C-alpha cells in the first residue's frame, strides 16, 4: 500500500474473464469475474461440480487460464511470476492429509517459508508465530497423522499463514469437522487479519464468517452481494442448488 500506483482501496484479488476446460474437454469455468479488496472476507458458494476447486487452482497458478487473467495485488499470474504468486496466495486444501506431507508439524509449517529462503531464527519465529495463531503451538513436534482431523485442518491453515500471504484461500474449510472443531476454526479465521476467500457449500458458515458472498454456478459468478441477503433469497438459492440446513433462518442469526 506504500506504492503510489494503488489508489483508494487496494485490490487483493482480481479475476477477469477466466475460462478453463480440463484436458478431457470438460469445460469447468465459462468466464469468471470477481474482485476482492484487501481485508475482506468473502465466501464463494456453489453446489458440487460448480467449478469452485477449479477456480481456486487458478489463483496460485496450479492451473493456468485458457482465457482471462488472474491478478494478486496487481501481479498477474504467469509462469515467470509463479514464485511470488505462491507466496502471496495461501491455499488451504480440502484434505489436510494432502497438505501436511512432512514428518512433523514443525517441519511442515517450515516448508513454505524455507522455500522462500528463510533459515535459522527467522524461520523458527515464523513457524511459532503461525502455529500460535491457530492455537497449535504445543503440537509442534508431533507427526501430523497423530493429530485429530480438526487439529490437522488448523495446522494446514498455519502452513500457509507462515508464508505471510496476501490472501488466504480455503477450500471447504468446514467439511468433516465436528461442531466443536468447526466453531474453533471459525474463531481462528475471524481473528486473522488477512484477506480471506472461503470456498464452501456450508451456508451458515459463510453467514457466520463472511460479510459478502459470491455464488459460482455452472462456471460463472451468478450472484455477488451481502451474504445475509443472498441467503434470504430462496429462489436464488434454489436456482443454484444451494440449501440452508433444515430450520435455519438467516434473519434469526445476527452477527
Amino acid at each position, binding site marked *: 500500500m506504500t506504492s503510489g500506483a494503488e489508489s483508494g482501496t487496494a485490490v487483493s484479488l482480481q479475476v477477469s474473464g477466466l475460462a478453463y476446460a480440463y484436458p478431457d474437454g470438460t469445460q469447468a469455468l465459462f468466464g469468471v469475474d470477481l474482485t476482492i479488496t484487501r481485508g475482506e472476507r468473502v465466501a464463494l458458494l456453489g453446489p458440487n461440480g460448480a467449478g469452485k476447486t477449479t477456480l481456486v487452482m487458478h489463483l496460485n497458478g496450479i492451473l493456468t487460464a485458457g482465457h482471462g487473467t488472474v491478478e494478486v495485488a496487481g501481479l498477474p499470474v504467469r509462469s515467470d511470476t509463479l514464485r511470488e504468486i*505462491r507466496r502471496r496466495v495461501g491455499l488451504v*486444501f480440502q484434505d489436510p492429509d*494432502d497438505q501436511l506431507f*512432512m*514428518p512433523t508439524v514443525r517441519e511442515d509449517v517450515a516448508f513454505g517459508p524455507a522455500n522462500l529462503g528463510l533459515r535459522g531464527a527467522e*524461520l523458527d519465529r515464523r513457524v511459532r508465530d503461525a502455529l500460535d495463531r491457530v492455537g497449535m503451538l504445543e503440537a509442534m513436534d508431533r507427526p501430523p497423522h497423530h493429530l485429530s482431523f480438526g487439529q490437522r485442518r488448523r495446522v494446514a491453515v498455519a502452513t500457509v499463514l507462515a508464508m505471510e500471504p496476501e490472501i488466504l484461500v480455503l477450500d471447504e474449510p468446514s467439511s468433516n469437522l465436528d461442531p466443536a472443531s468447526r466453531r474453533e476454526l471459525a474463531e481462528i479465521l475471524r481473528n486473522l487479519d488477512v484477506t480471506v476467500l472461503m470456498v464452501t457449500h456450508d451456508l451458515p458458515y459463510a453467514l457466520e464468517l463472511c460479510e459478502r458472498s459470491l455464488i459460482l454456478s455452472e462456471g460463472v459468478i451468478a450472484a455477488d452481494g451481502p451474504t445475509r441477503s443472498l441467503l434470504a433469497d430462496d429462489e436464488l438459492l434454489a436456482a443454484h442448488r444451494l440449501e440452508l440446513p433444515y430450520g435455519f433462518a438467516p434473519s434469526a442469526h445476527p452477527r
Partner: protein
Amino acid sequence: MSAGHHHALYVPGDTPVHRLPPQCKLIAALGFAVAVVATPREAWGAFAVDALLLAVVAVVARIPPGMVLRRMVIEVPFVLFAVAIPFIGLGERVEVLGVSLSLPGLWAAWNILAKATLGVVASILLAATTEPRAMLLGAERLRLPSLLVQIAMFMLRYMSVILDQARRMRIARESRGFVARDIRQAPVLARSAGALFIRSYERGERVHLAMLSRGYTGQMPAVHDLPASGRQWGAAAVLPVLALTTALIARSLA
C-alpha cells in the same frame, strides 16, 4: 496409531548411542557390515568378537536382548535357505547322525548365517536407537540422492494413511459379507488392491500440488543443521574399526 509418538522399531532412550548423530551411526553400521562380510568364514573367533562388540553396543544403548531376539525373526527366510544348502550341496560329504551332508554346503550355510545374523543385529540396534526421521536426516546429511531420501520420507509420513485406507476398504468389503476363504476370492482382492493403488497415486498428485503451492521447486529446503563433532565421529568409529581390525587379523592368520 494409538501406539504413541514413536515408530514401532524405535526404543526411546537417552544413552550415548541414542545421542550420536544419525549420520555417524549409519556409517558405523555400514562399516561394521563391510568388516563382517570381509571376514573369512573359517575365522570362528572373529565372528565371536563381532558378536561381542554388538553385545557391548546393546548394553550401552540399554536395548533388552529379548527384544533383539524377537526382531531377528526377519532373518527366518535366510535361515531356511541356509538350512537347505547342506542337503542339496555338491562336493565332499560328511555323515551327521546318519544323514549325508555336503561339506562345502555346510560352510556356505554357516557363512550366510553368521554374516546375516551379525548384519541384522547391527541394523536392529541402529533402528532401535535412531528415530526414523533422524535416520532420514542423517541420510540427507551423507548426501544420499535426495530423491531417495524424499521417497523414504513420504513413505514414513503416508504409510499409516495408506494402511488406514486399506483397513477401511477391508471393513467395507467384510461388512458386505465378503470373506476371503480361498483362491476364488482373489479377483476381488486384486481389484481392491488396484483401487488402493489408484487412490494412493491420486493422493500423490494432490500432495505434489500442495507442495508446489508452497514454493517447492524439486529440492527439499535444507533447514536442518545436524552437526557431528570429531569426537562423535570418533565414538561412532570404534565399532567398525574394531570389527575391521578383527577381520584383518583373521585374514592374515588364515
